């Protein structure tokens, strides 16, 4: 909402400065977004008088002028045809910035003669496009500031424009009058009441109006009248300037009048060319499919239930949103029908949204205008049309009735203190509300008809508090809910998230936060895509699907970084992935990827390409940080985006899958432009079971003083026998004695022949009661070899 200070002063008598007004507006909830003060750029310009103007010795069109200024008499060269003795001019001294020519004036020589400044045209000061000559002022004293002269003699030229943001509840501040009312209630001046006198009609309106029965809820009240014999030329300068100052284009007197009241009183009006209306006007609901060419020259189709103002020919206006082109007024219009109606905000909002029309009328009607002002608005517009365009007004025609919005709420003056924490005397609270138009009767407050937003006791407190100024609010300590040391607040899942995040970072991964929505193709690669997770109104084709996995975002990030020249990457993300489109169909995961080598080349020769076992180690470390138990099973059977034989899942029994790790499928990498291979892991954080025991007590530590013994075994096996089977078999040979089994070597092919491999394990034996004898050790060894052979078909390598 824009307005100018001069416009505001039509409704508010005040001595407040622009800055004071702006500060008050922001403080009471009408936040100032911009102040444009044309005077700001003109402070340096002063008035001067040309004492003598003579022809330049070397240029016919230039004049050498002696100009009396605030700095004494200055010689200024001027090319304007009207530069002559005795005129009062506007001077820019050396050092002054002249906005219209984007130049700072300097002392210089023009064709050999010194010039100490400039006499300006209107265009040079960006006051208008006028550039036929320099400004000649009819009055003014040498040395006065030009802005002061303008303020005194032509104030509209330096009228500051203020733009405020309107929150959805403050429909009343969409008119200058409403803004003035707020400022007056704040104490920034006195409101100027502008009573409206009804204009008596001299004849019956040739156009009558009716509202269909099923439409009266959407259009409770409609008023209008014909004014005949008008001349619809350009509106007068003052009105044009008003509208131009706030960014509206003057069109014609009739249209400008409606725009004026839209902004002055928050009362949108519509004018029909009465001669183009066939028969009477009828407000009714659309059947659906009716069409209209609107004033914006676009064609719209009504949907069922939208409101139409129609004549005998059909729709002539999208009610409350935009008029029709066919009955619009033109320069030839001589008879006009003026409409002032009250529309139901919800219906207007739906219609405007569906038809995608943004208009000043829709903007106001959907927020709710003052229903009581419907008829006064018509009368005010009538007066101004008669004044500007002449003509003769008919009697008013009406349909429906102004809806009764009267309601009252209890004013509990103690509530302000309890809710806001400000102590404001009861009588001040009442005075504030009355200044805002509330009627106070005992302890009941009736909101004015223009305040649709006031719907309860808390709203009364809000009005009082904002007028008293929340800047005065003093902080008041909030006691702890419970005395003493605060209890921990994080849930187990939240702690798990934090621990796994920091573990991943400690393992060398950089945390990314990627968009939750991804493109169709990437989603499909990871089991997503389709309707359930589709965003209906994405802002880009790259952001259409809620991610089914963290990998697409990470791999796309990897591709971007690879393209920037990073060869070795480790990236991870913690966040929600979506299994469907319902609110509960999501889970929190952590996933990471590694691409390239373990690091840049170094002199120690330890660098190698990352592999599946890096991913496994990372997954296990993070699972441990997240509190997963030590014993987990690794098994094949991963989703299609993993390498079919170089990936596995980590599980707790057959039912709980905690994680997957491995190489990502080469085809997926190719489609996502990642020069692979890439390995990664994905962990279902919520699948990690919560620790069974509460509290931190550990089981007692059992240390044996007896020496542990380690023995190595190597088995020749078929190549596809998995190490886990060897380890499990060996561990099962003597569960009480065998503390640990570790794989320490794998050797494939060579002298073993095709299809064979050797796997070496270390078995650690921990005696509990007495030192092991050689015989006992040999017996366990034998049992291990037997178990492994039986389980895997392997033989001890000799």
């Amino acid at each position: 909402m824009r307005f100018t200070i001069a416009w505001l002063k039509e409704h508010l008598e005040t001595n407040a400065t622009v800055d004071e007004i702006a500060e008050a507006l922001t403080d009471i909830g009408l936040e100032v977004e911009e102040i444009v003060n044309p005077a700001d750029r003109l402070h340096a310009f002063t008035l001067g008088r040309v004492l003598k103007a003579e022809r330049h010795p070397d240029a016919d069109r230039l004049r050498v002028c002696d100009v009396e200024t605030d700095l004494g008499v200055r010689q200024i060269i001027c090319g304007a045809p009207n530069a002559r003795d005795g005129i009062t001019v506007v001077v820019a001294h050396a050092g002054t910035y002249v906005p219209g020519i984007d130049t700072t004036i300097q002392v210089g020589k023009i064709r050999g003669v010194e010039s100490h400044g400039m006499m300006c045209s209107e265009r040079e000061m960006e006051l208008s496009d006028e550039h036929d000559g320099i400004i000649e002022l009819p009055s003014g004293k040498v040395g006065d500031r030009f802005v002061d002269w303008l303020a005194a003699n032509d104030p509209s030229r330096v009228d500051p424009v203020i733009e405020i943001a309107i929150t959805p509840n403050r429909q009343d501040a969409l008119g200058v009058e409403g803004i003035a009312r707020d400022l007056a209630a704040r104490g920034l001046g006195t409101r100027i009441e502008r009573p409206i006198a009804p204009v008596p009609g001299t004849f019956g309106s040739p156009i009558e109006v009716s509202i269909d029965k099923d439409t009266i809820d959407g259009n409770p009240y409609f008023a209008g009248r014909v004014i005949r014999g008008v001349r619809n030329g350009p509106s007068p300068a003052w009105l044009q300037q008003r509208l131009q100052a706030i960014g509206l284009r003057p069109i014609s007197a009739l249209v400008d009048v409606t725009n004026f009241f839209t902004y002055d009183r928050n009362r949108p009006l519509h004018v029909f060319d009465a001669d183009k209306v066939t028969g009477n006007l009828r407000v009714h609901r659309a059947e659906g499919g009716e069409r209209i060419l609107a004033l914006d020259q676009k064609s719209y189709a009504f949907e069922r239930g939208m409101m139409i103002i129609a004549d005998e020919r059909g729709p002539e206006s999208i009610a409350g949103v935009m008029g029709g082109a066919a009955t619009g007024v033109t320069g030839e219009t001589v008879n006009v029908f003026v409409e002032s109606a009250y529309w139901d905000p919800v219906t207007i909002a739906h219609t405007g949204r569906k038809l995608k029309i943004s208009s000043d009328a829709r903007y106001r009607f959907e927020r709710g205008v003052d229903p009581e002002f419907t008829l006064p608005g018509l009368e005010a517009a009538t007066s101004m049309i008669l004044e500007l365009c002449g003509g003769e007004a008919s009697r008013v025609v009406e349909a429906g009735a102004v809806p009764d919005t009267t309601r009252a709420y209890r004013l509990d003056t103690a509530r302000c203190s309890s809710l806001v924490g400000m102590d404001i005397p009861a009588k001040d609270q009442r005075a504030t509300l009355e200044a805002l138009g509330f009627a106070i009767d005992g302890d009941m407050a009736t909101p004015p008809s223009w305040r649709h937003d006031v719907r309860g006791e808390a709203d009364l407190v809000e009005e009082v508090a904002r007028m008293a100024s929340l800047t005065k609010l003093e902080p008041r300590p909030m006691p702890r809910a419970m005395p003493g040391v605060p209890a921990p607040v994080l849930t187990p899942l939240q702690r798990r998230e934090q621990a796994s995040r920091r573990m991943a970072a400690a393992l060398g991964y950089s945390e990314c936060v990627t968009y939750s929505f991804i493109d169709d193709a990437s989603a499909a690669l990871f089991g997503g895509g389709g309707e359930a997770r589709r965003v209906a109104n994405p802002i880009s084709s790259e952001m259409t699907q809620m991610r089914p996995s963290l990998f697409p975002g990470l791999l796309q990030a990897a591709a971007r970084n690879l393209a920037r020249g990073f060869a070795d990457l480790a990236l991870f993300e913690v966040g929600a992935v979506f299994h469907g489109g319902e609110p509960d169909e999501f889970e929190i995961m952590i996933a990471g990827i590694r691409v390239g080598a373990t690091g840049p080349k170094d002199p120690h020769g330890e660098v190698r390409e990352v592999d599946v076992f890096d991913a496994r180690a990372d997954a296990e470390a993070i699972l441990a940080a997240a509190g997963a138990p030590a014993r987990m099973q690794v098994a094949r059977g991963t989703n299609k985006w993993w390498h079919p034989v170089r990936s596995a899942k980590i599980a707790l029994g057959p039912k709980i899958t905690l994680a997957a790790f491995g190489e990502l499928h080469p085809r997926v990498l190719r489609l996502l432009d990642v020069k692979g291979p890439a390995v990664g892991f994905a962990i279902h954080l919520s699948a990690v079971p919560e620790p069974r025991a509460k509290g931190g007590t550990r089981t007692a530590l059992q240390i044996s003083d007896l020496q542990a013994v380690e023995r190595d075994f190597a088995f020749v096996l078929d190549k596809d026998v998995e190490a886990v089977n060897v380890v499990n078999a060996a561990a099962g040979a003597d569960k009480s004695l065998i503390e640990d089994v570790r794989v320490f070597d794998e050797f494939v092919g060579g002298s073993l022949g095709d299809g064979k491999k050797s796997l070496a394990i270390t078995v650690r034996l921990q005696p509990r009661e007495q030192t092991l004898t050689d015989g006992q050790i040999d017996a366990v060894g034998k049992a291990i070899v037997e178990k492994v052979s039986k389980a895997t078909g392997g033989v001890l390598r000799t």
Partner: protein
Amino acid sequence: MDDLRTRYLGEIAGAADEVALERLRVAALGKKGEVSLRMRELGGMTPEERQVAGPALNGLKDEINAAIAAKKAALEDAALDARLKEEWLDVTLPGRRRARGSVHPVSQVTEEVTAVLADMGFAVAEGPQIESDWYNFDALNIPDHHPARTEMDTFYMAQAEGDNRPPHVLRTHTSPVQIRAMQERGAPLRVICPGRVYRADYDQTHTPMFHQVEGIAIDRDISMANLKWVLEEFFSAFFGTTVKTRFRASHFPFTEPSAEVDIQCSWEGGTVKVGQGDGWLEVLGSGMVHPKVLEAGGIDSSKWQGFAFGIGIDRLAMLKYGIPDLRAFFDSDLRWLRHYGFAPLDVPTLHGGLQ
């Protein structure tokens, strides 16, 4: 005997290595060594002779042993010195690489915010990002026709054929989590709700996804003055300097009265410095929870009241750590992640500090 002494000590001093030393030891002190033989002769001596020769021989034996030990140590030292010289390395070569990862500023700042507010008794509540129309709007006193719905640039989810419910939305704020928290935990209540939110907007200063943390405190007599105190305490702890706030009247459908909150800052030299100067920066929306919102959360608004506030986490990170561009938060540029990210062990705590 002096001969013997001089000779052996001289030879020991001149021994080239341990082998020569051992040979000397055997020659002198071995079973048939010269000193040992002399000692064997003691038995044939008179008591008087023995009294003189005995201690002298024993002394000689000790002296030779000591000399051998000393020489041995000297030889070992020399050998070690020689070996150490051989072991010269270029110590300016790089060390073996250790992984260096980083934590994203959004995560770090979320933990910082949590640390401060947890101390004031706020628990952390989370909720769905795909949210029903009711939780995201209606429960927050934003009915269907409300202009705030259009102003929020909402993302809608596609609807299955025949699904007559209003379409689900990507939550436009974390406020629906407040409703869920009220329903689940009742009053009194203190929670914060951090998380991702979505608005259909993309330009210099807006991304279609960003992060918010909202806070809500419900009790018998909580007022807006308490809110101001909580926020000033929060900002001061978070920025590590005393930060004043300014409340301005505003409007949000879910609070009443509502206030925009500015924090004190200066803009000297083109950068924002929080807690200094006399400028103000708008950072936060807040207010007293609207009675209708309390009722939607199943809380009796005639008995309970409280405040709510919401602030951008990304915004807080930008302000505190001088990060210029919001869009870069979600670009995953390694250079950015390493520069603006945090070390894994840099866990924010109140006792250890938040910066």
